């Protein structure tokens, strides 16, 4: 109880409240504009938050992360263009509803389902906290190494159909973090005698290049386009009543969001597709799915909004980010010398509770904001894409240059920007590079620190948690091989689609 109060106290500051408002409302706007996603916004703002208090900076970034999907549903429903990548499935049922003249119903239902998912996710996080506080200290170096390894494997395997590409990019990410002076042996690694490489390749520079600059290049090299969304009329609160008729679907979808959000590498996409499949299979009207089914819309939106809270679980409890946005947030913790992991629950539990309350507050702020400002957002999303590209390019400079006023950083970021553009054009994933860098660093440090306690390789898995993690790795790999064999036998040609253009926004 004391901790809860301390957490609440953390939020009761004008700068935190302001950061919460800027983050959550800014996040909705960013999410609503096709072309900028939370990853671009967080990458740009990241260095600016380093000068702020950890709770202020994290609240702002968390606000953007948690609220962007609310905004992303608007263009998904109204113009069949998802605002953020994870709203892709929303357009499946949202847009047909708009075509039927039910735009108001679809948008308000999307908001209500998002709110349901968001709050459900946070409640799970709060209820799980005592368990996390109990389990987290059982994670020593070996367990964290194995958890990070499991994360890398899942990230690679989650990119079905592009596993080789995801594998090479994740490995490339691991390589990038090895460049520079080795912290233990003080030997140079792949510096080619260049002093600027001795300090290594900075994660923020890579993130800014791959997410922000590449997006600027992408928009600037594409033909200009200005999305045109029609205004919506009617009371936005109507969706809440309708949602209550589909409580089961919303709750199960949120449950999928929570469970899959916790597992590194899986996240929103898997949660959405599993909930969507569930909703369709258990629906009285399965044929309506894909043609404007409210249940499909609810399943998709409730699932993706439950993920941000759940994704905080491996980040806070183990210091292991499951996807790009939490990987970026990890650097905010490090800059302030707050190391997420088992100790966080013992030493900084007030910060953890503060973040929980911030998540609840941001969902409420966003919901209230959206009830009154949907039509304003339909005007904002008309920003021409090339203009957006110019602005992202100018803003990326703030992010890269403010780190250490280095022109070299700008050049490296520009190089990664071009790499990011190529990956986006090829529809190859960017996230494995970032997770490779972060998880690769964790794996190297933790494997080294566990070495003195290992006499034989079996000592690596002689503790219960490490054994479970090792078994999980084997199960994941075995399941993947099984799926491959099944697919090989079925051998069905597939149709092309753009659903996985996750890196586009």
């Amino acid at each position, binding site marked *: 109880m004391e901790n809860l109060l301390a957490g609440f106290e953390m939020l009761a500051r004008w700068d935190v409240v302001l950061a919460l408002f800027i983050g959550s409302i800014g996040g909705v706007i960013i999410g609503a504009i096709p072309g900028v996603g939370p990853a671009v916004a967080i990458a740009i703002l990241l260095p600016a938050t380093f000068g702020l208090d950890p709770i202020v900076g994290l609240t702002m970034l968390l606000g953007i992360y948690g609220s962007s999907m609310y905004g992303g549903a608007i263009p998904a429903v109204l113009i069949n263009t998802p605002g953020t990548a994870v709203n892709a499935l929303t357009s499946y049922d949202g847009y047909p509803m708009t075509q039927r003249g039910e735009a108001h119903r679809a948008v308000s239902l999307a908001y209500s389902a998002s709110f349901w998912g968001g709050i459900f996710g946070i409640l799970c996080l709060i209820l799980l906290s005592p368990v996390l506080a109990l389990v987290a200290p059982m994670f020593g170096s070996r367990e964290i190494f194995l958890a990070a390894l499991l994360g890398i494997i899942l990230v690679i395997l*989650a990119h079905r159909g592009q596993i080789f590409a995801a594998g090479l990019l994740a490995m490339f990410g691991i390589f990038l973090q090895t460049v520079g002076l080795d912290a233990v042996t003080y030997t140079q690694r792949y510096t080619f005698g260049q002093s600027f490489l001795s300090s290594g390749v900075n994660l923020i520079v890579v993130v800014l290049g791959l997410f922000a600059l590449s997006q600027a290049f992408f928009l600037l090299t594409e033909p200009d386009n200005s999305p045109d969304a029609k205004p919506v009329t009617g009371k936005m609160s109507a969706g809440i009543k309708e949602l209550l008729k589909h409580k089961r679907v919303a709750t199960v979808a949120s449950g999928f969001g929570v469970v899959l959000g916790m597992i590194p590498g899986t996240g929103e996409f898997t949660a959405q597709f599993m909930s969507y499949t569930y909703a369709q299979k258990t629906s009285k009207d399965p044929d309506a799915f894909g043609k404007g089914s409210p249940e499909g819309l609810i399943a998709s939106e409730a699932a993706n909004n439950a993920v941000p809270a759940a994704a905080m679980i491996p980040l806070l409890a183990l210091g292991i980010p499951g996807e790009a946005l939490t990987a970026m947030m990890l650097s905010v913790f490090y800059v302030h010398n707050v190391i997420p992991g088992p100790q966080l629950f013992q030493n900084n539990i007030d910060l953890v509770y503060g973040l929980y309350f911030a998540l609840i507050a941001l969902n409420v702020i966003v919901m209230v904001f959206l009830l009154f400002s949907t039509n304003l957002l339909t005007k904002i999303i008309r920003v021409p894409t090339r203009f957006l590209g110019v602005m992202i390019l100018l803003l990326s400079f703030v992010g890269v240059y403010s780190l250490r006023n280095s*022109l070299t950083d700008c050049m490296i970021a520009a190089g990664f920007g071009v790499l990011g553009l190529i990956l986006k054009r090829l529809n190859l994933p960017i996230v494995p590079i970032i997770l490779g860098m972060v998880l690769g660093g964790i794996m190297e440090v933790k494997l080294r620190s566990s070495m003195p306690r290992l006499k034989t390789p079996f000592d690596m898995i002689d503790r219960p948690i490490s054994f479970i993690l090792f078994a999980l790795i084997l199960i994941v790999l075995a399941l993947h091989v099984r799926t491959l064999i099944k697919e090989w036998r079925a051998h069905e040609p597939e149709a092309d689609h753009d659903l996985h253009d996750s890196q586009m926004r």
Partner: protein
Amino acid sequence: MSRVQTLQSLFKRYRRPGDIVFAWFILGFSVLLLSQIADQTAWRNGGKLFAQPRFWPAVSLGGTSVFAALHLISSALSDRIEGRWKEVLLWFKSLEYAGWFIAYALVVPYVGYLPTTVAFALALAVRVGYRKISTLVISALSAVVIVVLFKTLLKVNLPSGLMYESLPDGLRQIMLTYF
């Protein structure tokens, strides 16, 4: 085709034109880096394998090379998609904007953050095809908002321009501190 697809099919990613060019490039690059491992990393005699400074570069570059080779093979075995070189040309075209970005970073410490940002916003807007006065004015105003937000209000660590030094006393101080 039904719009509702199975979980598996929704997870597939598909090849785009130019995939094989990227596959060749990344394979060549990773093999080149791997060939330098003896020069670019050290081996400590007597140390455990997993604690060697060479261990992780070797694992990661070895992994990159193997996956890149597999990616290349799968790309080579797939049907050819039209428009490969047109796509590669577009990648090269993006270098122009990378150049704009580096030039912007190069100019700021001399000319100052505010004038450079406004000038680049206008120049880039013209470059990408905007000609209407209203769009150009909006570009310039957006640039001013970016400067005020990050430099004036958030006091983000950005350099003051050398050119500001030649301004009259009072104005110089304001420009150096806020813009």
